[in-house]
């Protein structure tokens, strides 16, 4: 075999180098390529957040302010009429954004702290801690969430605080499963083993080795969990065991004005009154779902087929 003159140089090996851009530049470029649904979703979410934050400035009247005429028809004074007790629907819709969304966000955050933390721990430590936690979560998940929530609420009573804690704990089981699964995928990677061999402590491994690599699915899951929690709180309030009056909340608003449905053939706007808060719930959920879908598409690398 002939000897080859060494023209080879490691530096010249071909590799794809990314052009260095700041976070904002990259974000802008990604946004420009976003599909219509993602834009729609982001707009919806933005509007809702805006309304929730600036509720006191936007709402025409107070949340629990009572007027003389209950079930007033839609007119200039009360754009969407009043409810059974004479409270302005529009104002309650606006404040409802703050209350319902606020409680849902707090609950989701709590669920993530508990579920995510425990899941990561289980993924890294493995062994009996992992087995115990996994079995425990399996048992908790053997009872459907709504049923479990109803049961616990009947025992502890339906305050906002109880609601947040109960639903957060119940939902943290799903977050646990996800973070454990993706955490385990990363925990078996050789770079994690390399860190262990170096002598790194668990804090470093969790925070610097594993966490940065599981952020995309966790962020997506946050969006999905928010939707789920949000719908569950609305349903519980609708059933009467969630957020209690006089707090304005979309779920209970639907329940409070529900009887107007039957008047649809006479006065369609009256029948629409309970639909408004229900639609408000649905539209936010759709918006978040659109954004999460797009985010998943970006981060999964699963491009659609092209023939």
């Amino acid at each position, binding site marked *: 075999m002939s000897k080859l003159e060494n023209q080879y140089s490691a530096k010249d090996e071909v590799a794809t180098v990314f052009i260095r851009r700041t976070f904002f530049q990259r974000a802008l470029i990604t946004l420009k390529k976003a599909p219509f649904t993602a834009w729609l979703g982001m707009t919806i979410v933005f509007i809702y957040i805006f309304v929730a934050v600036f509720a006191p400035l936007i709402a025409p009247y107070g949340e629990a302010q009572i007027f003389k005429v209950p079930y007033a028809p839609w007119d200039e004074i009360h754009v969407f009429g009043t409810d059974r007790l004479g409270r302005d629907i529009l104002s309650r819709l606006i404040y409802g954004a703050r209350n319902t969304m606020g409680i849902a966000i707090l609950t989701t955050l709590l669920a993530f702290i508990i579920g995510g933390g425990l899941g990561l721990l289980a993924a890294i430590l493995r062994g009996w801690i992992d087995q115990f936690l996994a079995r425990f979560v399996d048992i908790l998940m053997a009872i459907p969430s709504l049923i479990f929530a109803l049961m616990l609420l009947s025992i502890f009573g339906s305050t906002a605080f109880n609601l947040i804690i109960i639903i957060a704990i119940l939902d943290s089981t799903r977050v646990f499963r996800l973070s454990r699964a993706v955490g385990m995928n990363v925990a078996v990677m050789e770079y994690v083993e390399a860190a262990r061999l170096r002598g790194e402590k668990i804090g470093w491994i969790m925070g610097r080795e594993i966490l940065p690599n599981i952020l995309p699915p966790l962020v997506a899951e946050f969006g999905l969990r928010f939707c789920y929690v949000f719908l569950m709180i609305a349903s519980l309030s609708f*059933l009467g065991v969630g957020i209690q009056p006089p707090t304005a909340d979309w779920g209970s608003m639907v329940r409070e004005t529900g009887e107007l449905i039957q008047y649809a053939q006479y006065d369609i706007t009256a029948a629409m009154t309970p*639909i408004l808060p229900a639609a408000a719930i649905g539209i936010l959920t759709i918006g978040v779902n659109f954004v999460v879908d797009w985010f998943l598409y970006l981060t999964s690398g699963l491009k659609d087929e092209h023939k």
Partner: protein
Amino acid sequence: MHPIVATLIKRIGLGIVSLFFVSLIIFSSLNLLPGDFVEAVLGQSRTEETVATFRKELGLDKPFHIRYVNWLSAAVQGDLGSTFSGRNASYANQPQQSTARTVTSLLKPRLYNTFFLAAMTALIAVPLSLFLGITAALYRNTFYDRTVNASALATISMPEFFVAYILIICLASIYQFFPSLSNVTSSTPFFERVYLSILPALTLTLVTVAHMMRMTRAAIINLLSSPYIEMAQLKGLSRSKVILEHALPNAWAPIANIIAFNLAYLIVGVVVVEVVFVYPGVGQLMVDSVIKRDIPVVQGCALVFALTYISLNLIADVISIITNPRLLYPK
């Protein structure tokens, strides 16, 4: 022993153990209450004597494990205790007599109603979802697929009561095809029962189909990207042959899981729908009891739901096990 039998026994055993733990949780959650439950239920009219008597009757003076065993053994025989409602008043006057009804007597008729509604829904929802999910996966990214996907996404984003109310407005209020209240009783004849249950069943179907169809589509797409599917294509097999003979045999396990998962979801969705349509099922009973804080009834309902949920998951796992060639034909 054949590995499949061993696996099955293990799985069923696991199910029974889960059920045991679930019952423990359901029973003991009562004891998590800060403060005294008895005093809360009896309320203002309580006295030392009534509290003590009530406690004794509820068995709350005995230690925890004895109470649990009593409760469990009674439950297995069908006795879930008696409701709290109606007690306080009678205790105030006549501590000896109790006009409380048994939980089981409350549950029985409603159990039938709920399962009737669930069955009606499942009969339509399952085939429909499978059809939509599979076709959407096969004709991926076509207009059909995108429409089906978008509608499904919209539907699952809506709360169930929203779907229910829209249906009521359209089909019971403006055009009065169906009644908005479904008062079925035990004496309602079959076809009238079906007629009264159509709107609630329709609501449930829409929501369940949306979930199930998405999951089926995802599972089929995942299946179609397996390497042996490409191999089948390279052998020159027609598209339908590839799907029917190569994809489908491997699809039973994931599809069984999806169906079980969604039927379990159905059980939960039933609660809201029963409340909206005032349909006398277990869900409505549970919600009413939660509001009244009638714990024995709540526990009984929770137990029923949990039992159904666990059983459905068990069936799904069993199907996965018996369709797995690695277990059927071990090395």
